[in-house]
Structures are given as structure tokens and as C-alpha cells.
């Protein structure tokens, strides 16, 4: 469960987020939508403990993350959050399997069998030993989803996960997210995509750094 109260994020004189308040229930699919520069990614980074708010309160899985130290935030992220990026962000000299296993390495211990299973689950069982440069955009995003899942996080945060994909790959990726949602995971997706907007149970609409509405 995510509860944000009056979240503020300022960068020098620019206010990226103003008094953002909302709740995302456990197992809910929430989309963060809004025009470019409205603070969507900033909000996602705050939920994912990649950044700290200037003011306000943010409870994630019952923990007040604004009060955590940098070390504690890293630990919290490692144990509770799975991240999926628009740009995929894979380590170029590691294979698909190794890119998944690196998340295991940072979390606890590497388990090749589990990593293979995660890749098979996203339909990448046949591309385990391929480098990112040998994979299509859709394939890379599926590897990233497998990486986000590998440590069994309760919350999946995705920043424009289909932004760089064609229609077919977009559908494949959304199917994976639907499966994860059906398993009871909390999913928060930053998107411009109206189709994803329709799938979500909740939409947090941002405009100029403010929560315009939560529907």
C-alpha cells in the first residue's frame, strides 16, 4: 500500500511536485498520467526511493520512506520494489540471464534456475544467453520485467514501459503486467498510453506538478 500526503519535490527553485496526496491500495494497478514535465517520473522516483521529497509524507508498505537514510532506502528498494524503465537500462556486456541474475546478486544470492524461470515466464527462455545488443526492444523490455520480478517485490514501478515498443510488443508486455496484477502485486505505471490508462484501476492525473485528480 502506498499513501502519499502533501508530497513536495523542489529542484533548486523549480517545484517539480506540489502537495501530491493519493493512496494506492495493495494489489491495485495505478497509472500516473499527465503531460510531459508534469512530475510523473519525479513521483515514481519518490515512490521507488530513488529520490527524496523536499516535504511531505510517503508511506510504502507501512514504512515512512521519507525518514529513511540513503542506505535504508537502498535496502528498502532492493526488497520491496521492482523497477521497469522506458529505456530498458540493461548492462550491455552481460547476457539476458546475467542481467536478471545481477538483481539477485544485489538482493541476496544468485540462483540461475530461478533467473531462467523468470525469463521463461516473460517468454525469453530461448534468448537466455543473448547480449542486449542482440535483442529487440520488446525482448529487452521483457528481460527488464524478469529482472524486476526476480526478487519477488510487492510493488512494480514502471516508467513508460511500452514507450519504445511496437504494438505487438506492447501487447506482450501489457499481458505480463496483467499477469503480475492478477497475482496480487501492486503496479504503478507512468504512461501516456490511453490503452494502459484504461486497464488501470486508478489514475493519478498530474498537471504542472500537482495532482489534478485521482480517479
Amino acid at each position, binding site marked *: 500500500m502506498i499513501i502519499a500526503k502533501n508530497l513536495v519535490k523542489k529542484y533548486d527553485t523549480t517545484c517539480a511536485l506540489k502537495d501530491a496526496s493519493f493512496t494506492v491500495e495493495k494489489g491495485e494497478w495505478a497509472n500516473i498520467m499527465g503531460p510531459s514535465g508534469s512530475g510523473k*517520473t519525479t513521483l515514481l*522516483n519518490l515512490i*521507488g526511493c*530513488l*529520490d527524496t521529497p523536499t516535504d511531505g509524507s510517503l508511506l510504502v508498505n507501512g514504512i515512512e520512506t521519507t525518514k529513511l537514510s*540513503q*542506505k535504508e532506502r*537502498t*535496502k528498502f*528498494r*532492493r*526488497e520491496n520494489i521492482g*523497477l521497469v*524503465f522506458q*529505456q530498458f*537500462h*540493461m*548492462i*550491455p*556486456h*552481460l547476457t539476458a540471464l*546475467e542481467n536478471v541474475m*545481477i*538483481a539477485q546478486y*544485489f*538482493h541476496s544470492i544468485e540462483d540461475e534456475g530461478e533467473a531462467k524461470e523468470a525469463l521463461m515466464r516473460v517468454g525469453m527462455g530461448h534468448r537466455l544467453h543473448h547480449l542486449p545488443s542482440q535483442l529487440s526492444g520488446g525482448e529487452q523490455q521483457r528481460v527488464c520485467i524478469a*529482472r524486476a520480478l526476480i*526478487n519477488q517485490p510487492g510493488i512494480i514501478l514502471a516508467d513508460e514501459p511500452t514507450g519504445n515498443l511496437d504494438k505487438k510488443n506492447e501487447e506482450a508486455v501489457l499481458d505480463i503486467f496483467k499477469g503480475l496484477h492478477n497475482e496480487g502485486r501492486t503496479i504503478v505505471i507512468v504512461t501516456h498510453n490511453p490503452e494502459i490508462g484504461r486497464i488501470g484501476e486508478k489514475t493519478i492525473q498530474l498537471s504542472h506538478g500537482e495532482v489534478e485528480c485521482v480517479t
Partner: protein
Amino acid sequence: MKSLWVRKEKFLIAIIAIMLGAAMVASLLTISLDIKEKMGKELRGYGANLIVLPGESGYIDQFKPEHPAIIGFAPFLYFKAEVKAKKIELAGTDFKAAREMNPWWRIEGVLPGPQEVLVGINVAKKLELKTGDSLSIQTQYLNTGSFKVSGVLDTGTSDDDKIFIDFENAKQISGKNGATSIQVSVLGDIEGVISYLEDKNYKVKKIRQVAENEKALLEKTQLLMSLVAFFVLCAASLGLLSTMITSILERSREIGLMKALGCGNNRLAAIFLAEAGAMGIAGGVPGYFIGLLLAQFIGLEIFDMQVSLKPEVFLLTIAASILVAFAGSLLPVRRAISIDPAVILRGE
């Protein structure tokens, strides 16, 4: 380690720099430990540590020490005589014992037998003598017959101004009954030996038997090599620093991702230090072998000694290489730790 391998060309210069530094360290340590040890062994095994002089009597005719630390001695009887119409200092000695006490003596020819002499190189020049020549020795006591020159002695010391003859011959020629001094070699309790000999009414002087110039040369060589090693290691460290900084800038997105995936600062530092350590080993191992060759060359060319392998030098060289690699990585690692994943992953 895979990331190191994919950037091997970039790291090659840093590894070569570490290798050169390691070579200097290895050769310096080998020379310092091995040649010093060998000099020490020669000193303890053969060289004299003490000069024993007669007390009141003027001569030492019976020298039979029974101290366990005394491992050898050689008597010397110094006197002047006329050779080829010139006053020359003669030294009577037991050649076998004297040779063991003075392993650095360079003899062109052989050690003298009966009715033979060993001529110091300066005397040989002065009297125009060479191996195989004959000479006669005159004193107030005796006008001897002919002595054959068995060899020419070159020590680089005042011994080059003397003619050495057999101790018993010397006693007859000089008319003296014993030695004027005795070189004593001690292994262990030197102060105990001094007390022991002083109790027997001898005068005892400590002497430095390791050739001073060789010792000085060793010290100068060590100093020079230490300076070179220091600067090469500094250069290696700087080289590594610059390579690592470049690498971290290139990998900032990768580092940001690692941090986003939950990699803590300690683990991130460990990853980069492990890479640095691997570079230290990659440069240190070949550097050690190059250093050995260098030490062998210096040993043979400068000290006329063969150096031998020392396992501790290998370990110390590798440790120094890793240390240098770590030193060069500290700043880059701090830079890596300071990377903000949110900023990097946004593409800023």
C-alpha cells in the same frame, strides 16, 4: 570482472604502469634482501669481525681460543724488509686461513706454497714484478735466498702495498716469535668474545669487513631504485586513477542502474576495488618476473653476485601492486558512490 575484460584495451596502459612499478619493487626487494643477506653470510661465514692485538708482550705466539662463537682466525706478522733495494712491508700469514677471512681477495695466479710469495698489486707495479718472477728479501736477521712470485693480489686496500709470505717463513726472516695481529671471525656473541679475549690480556678492536665501497654502492643503488620505484608507482597510481575515472564516467548509467537495483555503496565500492585489485594482480605478476630479471642483471653487473628467488618478494610485490591499484581507485570509487541513480536513469 567481465566489465574489466570488455574494457581491457583501456585498462592495458594502467596495467603496464603497475607492471613497471611492480618490476622496480620486485628488483629492489630482491636486491635488498638477497644481496644484503649474501653479504651478511659472507661476513659471518668467512670474514673477520675482530682484530686481536698483543697486550704487553708485543707478539702473540700462542693463540688457541676456545670460545664457541669464534669460527676462525688468521695470524698476521707485519714487518719491513728490503726487496729489490726498496723498503717494503711484508705480511706473514697462514694463507689458507687468510683466504677464508678475505673472500674478496682477487688473486692473479695461485696461493703461495713454500718459498713463494703473494705480491700486492701496487708493490708488483713498483718493483716491476709479475707472477713467476723471483725476488730476494733482506732483513737485519737474514739475507734470504730466492722467493718465487706465485700470484699478484688485488684487494683495493692497503694490502696491495704488501708482500705476503708464509707465516713460518716470516717468523724466521723477521726474527719475531709470533703474530703482530690476528683476524678473528665470530658468529654470534661478539661482545662475549671481546670480553673473553680481553680477559686473556689481548687488545681487541672491532673491524668492518664488508667492503665499504660495496656496501655504499648497495645503499646508493637501493636509494636510487626506491626513488624510481616510488615515482613509477605514483605514476601507475595516477594512470589507474585517470583510467578508472574515465571508466566510471562511461559507466555512469550502468552504475546508476546498479544502485537503482539495490546495490549498496559498500558493495559498489567492493566491485570497483575488486576490479582494481585484479588490475594490480595482472600488472604485479609479470612485473615480479621482470623485476627478477632486472635484479639478476644488477646483481651480476654491479655486485658480481647471483640473486636467488625469494617467495616473500613475490607476495610483497603483489601486495604493493594491489595497494597501488587501490590507492589509484579511491577517488574514482568515491565518484561512483556519489552517482545519483535517479539523475542518471533520467538520462541527464
